[in-house]
């Protein structure tokens, strides 16, 4: 092998960079987010799996519908329960603790939603 002095360190650097998540502060796997569910309410506006994957799209739809298209503020769940289509007055009514509900997963997945650029953050989280 020629140029060992340069090639071997370069290969070690390559392997080190590629495996970085395996050795660099990869953290504890068992430390999973556990968003706190509201105690007084059992039903959400949509099924859990949908809310888990697509709540941000739902919020976006609400915003576009209500603020831009003049849509209704009230919605109905599949069971017929009425709810307010609003982040602060709807979602946060049941999921009142932003830190324990929103931030738990968002921090885990490194997501910084821009909801709070406009909306006031709930007091206990400030």
């Amino acid at each position: 092998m020629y140029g060992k002095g340069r090639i071997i360190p370069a290969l070690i650097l390559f392997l080190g960079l590629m495996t970085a998540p395996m050795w660099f502060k990869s953290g504890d796997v068992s430390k999973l987010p556990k968003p706190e569910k509201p105690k007084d309410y059992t039903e959400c506006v949509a099924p859990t799996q949908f809310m888990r994957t697509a709540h941000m799209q739902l919020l976006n739809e609400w915003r576009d519908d209500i603020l831009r298209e003049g849509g209704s503020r009230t919605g109905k769940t599949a069971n017929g329960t009425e709810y307010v289509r609003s982040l602060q007055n709807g979602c946060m009514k049941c999921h009142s603790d932003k830190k324990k509900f929103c931030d738990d997963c968002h921090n885990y997945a490194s997501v910084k939603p821009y909801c709070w650029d406009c909306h006031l953050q709930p007091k206990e989280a400030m």
Partner: protein
Amino acid sequence: MRILSPFIAVLALIAVALVAAQVPGGQALMGIILPYLAFALFLGGVVYRVVQWAKSPVPFRIPTTCGQANSLPWIKQNKIDCPSTKLGVIARMILEVALFRSLFRNTKAEMYEGPKLVYGSSKFLWLFALLFHYSFLVIVLRHMRLFMDPVPGFVAALEFGDGFLQIGSPVFYQTDALFLGAIAFLFLRRIFLANIRYISLPADYFPLLLIFGIALTGILMRTVFRVDVVAIKQLTHGLATFSPAIAGQIGSIFFIHIFLVCTLLIYFPYSKLMHMAGVFMSPTRNMINNSRMVRHINPWNDPNIKPHSYAAYEDEFREFMKESGIPVEKE
């Protein structure tokens, strides 16, 4: 047709992933076993190829000279395009690796009435290649949020900058659009330019289509077929810490995405994609053009064979040469 077989191959890969995601045990196979296998093959393959290259001797100075070589003192040397020092080579390599300098020199030849051949500068390949590679880098680095916990600051900063326009929720990343656009350009140029189409092989189309498939499934996963990111991070973070587990419901689109990525990783070391390491190893770029200053001796020359100059040759055979009537320099 040379474009049809790679296209069918990519479609077949997607179909395999789609079916395997439904079969019991298929998710563990594609989500846990295959990524480890692919990653090991990728790392091992790259190291193997580099070592094989390093074993090949390069006995001659063969740098491409793209400018004036070091010559007489009043002739200005092009120190980067024809480097005669180590520093010049380092500058040349950095510019080549980071800014694709050789593509910047890309030209096109066109035939006009006459017939008249006209050469012109063509910077689009350079521009889109640069966009493609840097977008890919940003996208790979952004994915580190799924493999590390806590997420490093620079990844969060990249995500913020990339989603700066705040289009939709979850925000659309600008690099995704740039990336798709750049792949589309690199692909369409192989179809619409007759001379490029002539030299394009399935091995040229396949990686482009495969990477396009990866990008598209990734974007669809983010915008249309939403998946549970927490369940995915649990799996991917588990992969990085050697304790993977598939929990919760993960959509089929994720398995298509990861299957295509694994295919890319496995395919990588055995294909043209090895230019990633090859660019550092190419003797036409990384050698100093000093063959007029330094004597380079072929490493495999037999030391028992001594240099034999013409003068010595003539001394040895003078009488025979004279007898045959061959002119000699010294009587």
